[in-house]
């Protein structure tokens, strides 16, 4: 056993209102720079939709993630030899037009235009060429199902839906949507790390955050291809790849990442999970049907004394173990089993989990009324407006049983709470819901509390980073004492 700690996250999709506050907070802090304008380390996609970059989930084009190869896995895009042979030109790289060309507006013209017959306008100006441009596409062009023939209908996750099911998703009375906020998943088996020829991308041992060393990145841009979630972005200005760094400077000082801190719907949770690094290879290369269940297995019980002992021996700090025992992620993912990884079939073992949304049921409009109630206990789930297969393609590698199980649990919590607060439900119904999902009243109340009424410190249980013990501080400080600062800092500069 090689127990390590990982900062993991849960996003509760039922609570996401699609306001993009997270994206703006992230952009203001990190990507408001030349060459980074198009980067959205955090973005919120409307589902069904094609996401960002356009159709990123279509790995037959983008070649991201891993594929099973015998007992092991190999990068879907290129193996080591072809990576090296393709350094001069990456055949599977998304280009600027797969994202969008960033722009601003010529606001000065509004004030400085000479008097004339027409109202002055602020023309869009490309942030790349600096010249007037025609905007073809932009961030969240498909927000709230806008432009659906081009976007929602092209959604890659509908691949094994029947034509009737697909059609039903786009009929006015039946259509629905939900939001999918995405950041870097800080994967256990990160494909970007594996693909970097320079070895510039690494996972931090203490907290599992995946970072790109900007001093080692040589612009080979293989990570952009390898990341199946397309969360590594290439900065065309300084020739470096950049990605979400989980706001590690904030985390190290005990603050929640900016996207999570600002979240209006309070959908985001962050905490520690303990995992056994020795099992990564075995689990990443298991059968597709087992991927979700096996990934859940790799996370270890922080209350188990044997686990605690092994973690301590492996150098996990006591304060981290304490955080792990309070981790909201542990509760959602393991204790309650209601959060699932996004696209586990990419085999990167992502550490961002989603509580799938309980969407409105298909209504019965016969008889002139709009009727959504259902006679059967799970009718609301079975007749959900988004086909179960679609949700399964997103969160369980196509396994509809698994996604149904999770949605039933969420529904059981609702049934239970309705029984408690309104009291108009048959008690047998509630008991049956519990019996079928394995929940009980205490658990359902706990899920309800952490979902609806969590305090800030319950949503974010941030382990102490112990930077005071970092290796560089253990070096002989006398060598540096009396000198000017702790080293020279060079302003990042292009050649």
């Amino acid at each position, binding site marked *: 056993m090689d127990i390590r700690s990982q900062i993991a996250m849960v996003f509760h999709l039922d609570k996401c209102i699609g306001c993009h506050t997270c994206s703006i907070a992230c952009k203001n802090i990190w990507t408001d720079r030349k060459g980074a304008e198009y980067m959205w380390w955090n973005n919120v996609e409307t589902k069904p939709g094609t996401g960002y970059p356009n159709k990123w989930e279509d790995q037959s084009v983008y070649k991201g993630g891993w594929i099973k190869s015998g007992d092991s896995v190999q990068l879907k895009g290129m193996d080591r030899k072809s990576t090296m042979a393709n350094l001069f030109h990456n055949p599977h790289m998304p280009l*600027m037009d797969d994202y969008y060309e960033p722009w601003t507006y010529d606001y000065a013209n509004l004030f400085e235009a000479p008097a004339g017959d027409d109202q002055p306008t602020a023309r869009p100006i490309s942030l790349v*060429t600096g010249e007037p441009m025609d905007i073809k596409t932009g961030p969240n062009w498909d927000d709230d199902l806008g432009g659906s023939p081009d976007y929602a209908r092209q959604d890659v996750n509908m691949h094994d839906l029947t034509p009737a099911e697909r059609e039903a998703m786009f009929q006015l009375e039946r259509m629905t949507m939900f939001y999918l906020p995405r950041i870097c998943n800080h994967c256990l088996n990160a494909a970007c790390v594996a693909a970097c020829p320079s070895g510039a991308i690494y996972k931090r041992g203490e907290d599992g955050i995946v970072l790109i060393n*900007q001093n080692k990145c040589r612009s080979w841009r293989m990570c952009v291809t390898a990341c199946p979630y397309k969360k590594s972005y290439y900065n*065309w200005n300084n020739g470096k790849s950049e990605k979400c760094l989980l706001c590690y400077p904030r985390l190290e000082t005990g603050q929640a990442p900016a996207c999570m801190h600002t979240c209006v719907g309070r959908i985001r949770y962050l905490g520690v999970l303990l995992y056994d690094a020795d099992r990564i290879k075995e689990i990443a290369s298991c059968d597709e049907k087992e991927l979700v269940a096996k990934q859940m297995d790799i996370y270890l019980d922080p209350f188990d004394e044997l686990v605690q002992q092994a973690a301590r021996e492996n150098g996990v700090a006591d304060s981290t173990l304490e955080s792990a025992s309070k981790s909201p992620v542990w509760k959602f993912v393991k204790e309650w089993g209601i959060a699932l990884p996004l696209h586990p079939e990419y085999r990167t073992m992502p550490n961002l989990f989603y509580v799938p949304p309980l969407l409105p049921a298909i209504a019965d409009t016969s008889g002139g009324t709009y009727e959504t109630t259902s006679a059967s206990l799970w009718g609301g789930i079975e007749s959900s407006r988004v086909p179960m297969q679609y949700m399964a393609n997103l969160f369980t590698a196509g396994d509809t049983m698994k996604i149904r199980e999770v949605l039933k649990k969420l529904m059981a919590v609702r049934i239970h709470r309705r029984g408690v607060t309104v009291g108009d439900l048959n008690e047998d119904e509630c008991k049956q819901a519990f019996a079928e999902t394995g929940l009980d009243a205490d658990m359902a109340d706990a899920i309800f509390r952490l979902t609806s009424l969590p305090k800030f410190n319950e949503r974010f249980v941030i382990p102490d980073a112990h930077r005071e013990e970092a290796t560089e501080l253990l070096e002989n400080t006398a060598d540096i004492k009396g000198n000017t600062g702790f080293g020279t800092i060079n302003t990042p500069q292009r*050649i």
Partner: protein
Amino acid sequence: MSDIFLLIALPYTALIVMLVGSVYVYGTQAYKVTSLSTQFLESRELFFGGLFMHWGIVALFIGHLIAFLFPSAVIAWGGNPVRLIVLEVTALIFGISFFTGVIILIYRRMRNKRLHRATTDMDIVVFIVLLAQAVTGMWIALTYKWGSAWFAAVLTPYLRSLFLLSPDLAAVSAMPIIVKLHISTAFVLIGLIPFSRFMHFLVFPVKYFWRPFQVVIWNRNRKLMRNSKAIMPEVKSKNS
């Protein structure tokens, strides 16, 4: 006099600048060391230009290196007319590949407005040097035939004398000016390495062939810290 400048002063300056400069830049400004790919802004023309140019220059560099290191073997190989022609034609093909690649890349840079913004002054210098090298190289290949034979006889002794620190211009000074230009632009290219994107071929990531896929870096080593003696062996703990 100009021979002394072009064939002795310039090469030594370039080599020293390259060695000292590369170590300095790598050591203190590693951030600057990148290939500055522009594929993100334009991919299709880069495919042709980039591949022709890179494979051409890689092959030509290796060819020149072999002729420098093993002159007798190259001369022996060229002893048979058929083999000589095969060698010359192969070299010419790579030369054409390099030349075409450079032309495509320059054309691409000039044509695409997005690329204007990603092109620095140093990039223009880089293109001028590459173009000069390609033009002089092709000129020599087409006008002074059987280069593989005379390179070993004329240039190898000169280059060797450079590296042995006793420059000998006897053979090379009789060469036409175009050959001398080709030699000196080659050294200009070498001298530009630390200041330009040329730096990227010093950091070719050979390690990728054998490094493990996953890279994990620890900020602190708590296993070591539990035994403080292991960290600073020379410091004796007061309470043990």
